């Protein structure tokens, strides 16, 4: 048996190797490239970059200029807190890369700790729990989608550890307080992890009520820590009602709920089509852990039986399928558990039933670690020990290699176009990009979030909605609709462009010609030159041709005047 620090070091090494492998080549090109598939990592970079300047009102004027944008309904308040505290020290890129590379390591380490402390697993078999939880299908989805704050989820296993201890006959108030804190951190990480954590707490409380012997002290301590955070969260969320703008067609309740649900195929693995068309929502269960957990009734002694936990996993899997049982998200209309939610013709705020499977992956992982421990104890001779040891290798491959993440993702350079440095400081930048609709909707969000992420370097306010998916309601869309119509009209009116943009506080227009088809590209370029003169700067670095046109005469200080100018423009446009 190795010393505890040696076990921890080796556990962290195994998890670090898995983290580096599955996000390759992020670790090789540290600070230059990050692996992703979709577009949410760009808005996360924006949020972390903006966080140090956001006050307690959770409102920013760096986005949706000149109106500003509320962040009361941000996905992750923990990211805002981390960005505010650590962003100025390490920078947004390092913080986000830290979530990508170190998040799974810490999450896996916490799950490994839970397996040892509560489920009777022994090292090194306990590492199976860490690999199963931190690198499950939902973690792969988080990496590919860019919601990488999900990867830093040690709070859920630590909640389970403290909660089970607190609910036991030897429970101490300290355990309850820790459980309350971990529940709060789950909620602050993301509302979905908060829902999962609440389910876990309910199960733990129900289990304690059935078994009896619990003490009130830990429960009181837990509530004392968790309730203020929970109530503050609910108050913030309620205050943010109506700040998200109207939902586009793609976001109607049925579509959203179906898209965020598991399918029979995505529970088993991934296909290229799922990555291309279904946002890589592939919440498969960790395969090694699943098989080991399923044989647990044959292996674990009666007093450590995990039947109740496995029934909970079955319930979570059933719930994760959402409103319909789909084979692969494109067929079948068999109504299922959450179909009543689709009858409500309004947003139900619960969009991703698949995310319930975080808890399933954790349970399977810790039960599997306990099963592997028992199998290892039965092994005699080098051959049998080698065979049991192969389970560790299989678990590592299942976590790090088989998700094929480097192949499924795209190594994206983090560089920002240099042309933005020529824009006047203190004045907003108007991003002139096309409006992508229909099948190109993802491109609309990708380009929107990408240009928002550039702000972490140039620092100029943008008219884009930099958080959320409702770009249609942002000032950027309304202003560029007017600008494009003005410049592309059969009788262009370039003389009106400069004074109106200046009145709204814009110091520059950033034009992305490559994103427009001809002949619009040439017509817009000619129109911009007629209205604003030759480009102030042009750059072709960072994979994006950017032409900066200066808007003269803006001062950027008269916020009310800028808002009034926008309101006047909207009134003219009939909206």
């Amino acid at each position, binding site marked *: 048996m190795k010393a505890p620090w040696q076990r921890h070091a080796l556990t962290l090494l195994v998890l670090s190797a898995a983290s580096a492998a599955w996000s390759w080549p992020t670790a090789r090109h540290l600070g230059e490239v990050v692996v992703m598939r979709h577009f949410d990592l760009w808005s996360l970079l924006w949020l972390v970059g903006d966080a140090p300047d956001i006050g307690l009102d959770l409102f920013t004027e760096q986005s949706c200029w000149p109106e500003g944008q509320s962040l009361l309904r941000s996905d992750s308040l923990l990211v805002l807190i981390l960005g505010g505290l650590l962003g100025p020290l390490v920078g947004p890129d390092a913080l986000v890369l830290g979530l990508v590379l170190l998040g799974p390591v810490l999450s896996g380490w916490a799950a490994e700790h839970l397996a040892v402390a509560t489920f009777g697993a022994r090292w090194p078999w306990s590492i199976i729990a860490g690999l199963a939880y931190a690198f499950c299908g939902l973690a792969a989805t988080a990496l590919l989608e860019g919601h990488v704050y999900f990867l830093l989820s040690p709070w859920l296993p630590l909640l389970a550890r403290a909660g089970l201890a607190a609910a036991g006959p030897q429970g101490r108030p300290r355990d309850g307080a820790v459980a309350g804190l971990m529940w709060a951190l789950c909620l602050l990480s993301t509302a979905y992890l908060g829902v999962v954590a609440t389910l876990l707490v309910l199960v733990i409380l129900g289990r304690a009520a059935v078994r009896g012997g619990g003490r009130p002290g830990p429960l009181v301590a837990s509530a004392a820590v968790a309730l203020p955070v929970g109530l503050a969260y609910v108050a913030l969320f309620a205050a943010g009602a109506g700040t998200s703008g109207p939902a586009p067609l793609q976001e109607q309740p049925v579509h959203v709920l179906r898209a965020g649900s598991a399918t029979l195929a995505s529970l088993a693995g991934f296909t290229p089509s799922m990555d291309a068309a279904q946002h890589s929502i592939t919440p498969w269960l960790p395969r090694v852990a699943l*098989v080991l957990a399923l044989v647990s009734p044959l292996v674990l002694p009666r007093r450590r039986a995990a039947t109740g936990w496995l029934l909970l996993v079955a319930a979570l899997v059933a719930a994760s399928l959402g409103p319909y049982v789909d084979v692969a998200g494109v067929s079948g209309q068999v109504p299922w558990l959450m179909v009543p939610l689709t009858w409500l013709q309004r947003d139900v705020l619960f969009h991703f039933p698949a995310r319930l499977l975080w808890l399933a992956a954790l349970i399977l992982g810790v039960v599997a670690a306990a099963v592997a421990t028992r199998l290892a104890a039965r092994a005699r001779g080098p051959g049998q020990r080698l065979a049991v040891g192969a389970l560790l290798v299989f678990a590592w491959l299942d976590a790090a290699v088989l998700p094929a993440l480097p192949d499924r993702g795209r*190594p994206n350079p983090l560089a920002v176009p240099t042309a933005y440095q020529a824009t006047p400081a203190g004045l907003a930048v108007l991003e002139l990009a096309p409006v992508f609709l229909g099948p190109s909707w993802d491109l609309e969000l990708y380009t929107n979030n990408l240009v928002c992420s550039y702000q972490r370097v140039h620092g100029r306010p943008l008219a884009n909605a930099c958080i959320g998916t409702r770009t249609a309601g942002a000032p950027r869309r309304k202003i560029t609709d007017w600008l494009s119509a003005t410049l592309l009209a059969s009788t262009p009116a370039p003389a009106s462009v400069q004074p109106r943009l200046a009145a709204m506080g814009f110091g520059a227009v950033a034009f992305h010609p490559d994103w*427009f088809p001809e002949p619009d590209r040439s017509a817009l370029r000619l129109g911009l030159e007629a209205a604003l003169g030759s480009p102030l700067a042009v750059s072709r670095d960072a994979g994006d041709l950017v032409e900066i046109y200066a808007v003269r005469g803006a001062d950027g200080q008269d916020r009310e005047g800028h808002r009034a100018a926008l309101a006047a423009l909207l009134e003219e446009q009939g909206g």
Partner: protein
Amino acid sequence: MRRWWLPAVLATFLAPPARAGLDPASQEQTLTFQVLQPSGVALHGAWIELTRLGEARRVTLRDDGLGPGDIPYDGVWVGEDRGPFTRVVDATLLVALPDAEPRPLVTEAVRTDAAWAATVSWRLVDTPDGLTAARAAFAHPGRSVPVSDLLPLAGSFGWLVFLAVFVLGLLLVLQGESEK
């Protein structure tokens, strides 16, 4: 000797990150374009016209085995364009039917944001109104897109079956040992 692993740990965590000097401005990126030809439709040629960082380019797609990585006459037309890294290009797909002039089928902005290489695929669809094009997750040789798309899933099932057989076998062996 007991701490033989210590240098490896230190090397992993303390060594400066390996930098290949990745600079998007000078980084060469290969864009591969694939077009899947439907059964029963003969094509005389296929081209991609794109704008890459402001530069207009034309890529000839081939299915005669002379293109990069092309398998001759497998129904997948392939072409490559090399240049500096670019995140989005505006691309037009043109095809020529036998004895007809090339005509554009689709023009759209496509994401190419992978540092070193990106693949963009279309699937041609033969409709009563003529040929149309739709983006595809990928194209594979032999007109086997639906089958190839399921390969990773089939691999997952195979892996699961292997694990189940392995664990059950292990269980039987260890059970036998404990009974002895």
